């Protein structure tokens, strides 16, 4: 069959291109190794320590004793290191010097406020510019949980109930979570992002495969043969997709067995994502080929687009470290969809999300191919 002939020779020619092979296989393997080692510290998840917190109780009544009792409970002591201070100034100074993440302050009118129903506050003084947001959040949650339970007791008392009892129980079943393979290390991260990057670079296979027919004389020669146009383009497209898929799988196997990259338990899912991205990427290449006035411009567009897409999606460095602005741009990059499809399956085990993303990728692939066909028809009319 003529179409198999075109597929076979397309793959053969793609695999013979040493420059492309260098870009598609050797380059990502080297980059994963370099970035994976150089930025490994960014991917170390430190143990959560007790949050140091200053505490000053100036209440002249007895209501605050309940809070002190709460702070000294074993459960709270496991997460907060309470440092009692003698004055408000001393507490603020500790916060400013970053010796504590917050100062918990109960003023002199606390009991009186509760008794008179005028309201009472437990204040939390922090320095928002000092960093340590995560630890501040822990302190706030601890204080909030006391205030909420205290409010509940008060409300029950006001409606005549017996709200005086304060009993500590736990509804939490304590299970150990094994984090191995649940959080990507640097090699795991770059394994995925570089794979998505080469899949996107694969747009060049679509571009060159079709451009050869579209801009260069050899295409006319093939069109002059007794083969239908759709067979030519389908053959080229399938050849490009298969080449790309093959290269992606080589990268997956290499990184899995040499670098120990985590690709999850089910290789079929990874293969499916790779295939979907390969079709999408080739579709982008063909579309650019049809949009561009000539092969040179088409080449230039792809040379610029792929690294930009990779960068925006956090392919070179996680976007979380690049600030809010960059975080928004990630949605402009098709690589981001690829990253999410892989990460949600490998680390979240969210197969439904992965399935939805794969459907989205196929949708985009059909869209790009459809646009390419429309543009192609317009050109040949």
């Amino acid at each position: 069959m003529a179409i198999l002939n075109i597929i076979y020779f397309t793959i053969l020619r793609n695999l013979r291109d040493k420059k492309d092979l260098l870009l598609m296989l050797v380059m990502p393997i080297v980059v994963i190794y370099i970035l994976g080692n150089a930025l490994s510290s960014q991917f170390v998840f430190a143990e959560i320590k007790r949050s140091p917190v200053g505490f000053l109780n100036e209440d002249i009544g007895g209501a605050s004793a309940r809070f002190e009792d709460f702070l000294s409970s074993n459960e709270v002591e496991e997460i907060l290191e309470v440092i009692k201070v003698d004055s408000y100034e001393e507490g603020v100074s500790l916060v400013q010097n970053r010796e504590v993440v917050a100062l918990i302050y109960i003023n002199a009118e606390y009991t009186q406020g509760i008794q008179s129903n005028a309201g009472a506050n437990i204040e939390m003084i922090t320095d928002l510019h000092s960093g340590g947001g995560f630890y501040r959040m822990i302190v706030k949650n601890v204080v909030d949980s006391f205030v909420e339970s205290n409010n509940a007791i008060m409300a029950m008392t006001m409606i005549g109930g017996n709200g005086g009892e304060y009993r500590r129980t736990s509804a939490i079943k304590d299970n150990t979570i094994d984090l191995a393979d649940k959080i990507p290390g640097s090699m795991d991260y770059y394994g995925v992002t570089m794979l998505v990057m080469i899949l996107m670079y694969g747009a060049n296979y679509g571009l060159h495969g079709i451009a050869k027919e579209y801009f260069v004389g050899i295409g006319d020669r093939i069109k002059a043969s007794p083969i239908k146009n759709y067979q030519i383009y389908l053959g080229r497209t399938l050849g490009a997709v298969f080449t790309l898929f093959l290269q992606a799988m080589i990268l997956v196997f290499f990184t899995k067995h040499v670098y120990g990259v985590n690709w999850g338990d089910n290789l079929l899912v990874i293969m499916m994502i790779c295939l979907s991205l390969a079709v999408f990427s080739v579709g982008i290449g063909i579309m650019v080929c049809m949009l561009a006035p000539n092969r040179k411009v088409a080449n230039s567009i792809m040379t610029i687009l792929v690294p930009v897409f990779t960068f925006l999606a956090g392919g070179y460095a996680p976007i979380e470290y690049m600030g809010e602005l960059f975080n928004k741009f990630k949605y402009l990059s098709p690589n981001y969809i690829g990253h999410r499809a892989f990460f949600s399956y490998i680390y979240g085990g969210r197969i439904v999300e992965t399935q939805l993303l794969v459907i989205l990728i196929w949708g985009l692939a059909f869209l790009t191919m459809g646009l390419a066909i429309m543009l192609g028809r317009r050109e040949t009319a």
Partner: protein
Amino acid sequence: MIVEINNLVKRYENNIAVDHINLSIKEGDIYGLLGPNGAGKTTLINTMLCLSRINEGQIKIFGKDLYSQEEEIKKEIGIVPQDVAIYDDLTTYENLVFFGKLYGLKGNLLKNRIDETLEFIGLQDKKKAYPKKFSGGMKRRLNIGCAILHQPKLIIMDEPTVGIDPQSRNQILESVKILNEKGSTIIYTSHYMEEIEEICKTITIIDHGRVIASGTKEELKNLISFEDRITIRLAKANNNLCNEIKSIDQVKECIVEDNRLTIVSSKNSKNLGRIIDVITQQNSLIQEINLEKPTLEGVFLTLTGRTLRD
């Protein structure tokens, strides 16, 4: 007729590339399409291969309507494009396999045809080599090989000798003659008048998308052959000699300039012997005689007012 083109029109926006062309090509012919670059030759070829849609007219090849039986017709056509259209990253053999399979060849038939073709184009020892290392002539030969592998009834060669050395050009011209002797009808386009004159049996001159003239070489030359022109260089020439020559029957004009006589006679006057007698009687030494024959270049010049390479 193997090809019949009636009233063909092809426009590109406001430009008319093929302007109401009519052609009839006989089976077994080597049919030359002669015209300068941009005359419309390649556009005409492209319409015959369905590479370009026509605006008006009809094309019949092998007696079948091109647009209703495109696939069937294309199976019997071999195209040698103007630009070398082969894959540099496939070997000679692989290129032939690729194009052979496009025309439905497979198995032993394909293998045998490849062997025959390699021998014909003289690239047997290069079957495993990549064309990127070939000379221009070798690439052109492989370009032809890919077109004749399926032994087509009609071979269209669009300027197949552009940019190659004289030796390779002669090889290609010889191969065209052999292919024709083996039974293929050839359509050969060129802006090289000498090539067309050497190999083509029928010639159509095209300019600005129109047929200027059509016929055999002789028929075309007869269009402009009303007189014979002879130039004779002498050791010493003078006006007396010129006047004496003018008195010879059917001599219309004689001009002397720098010891060179230019003599114009009626066509086929056969008076060269008498002219030489007069010169020798005057004891003038003849150094060179040229009998100028009409050429296709002259035909084109006469009909269009410009040369083929303008």
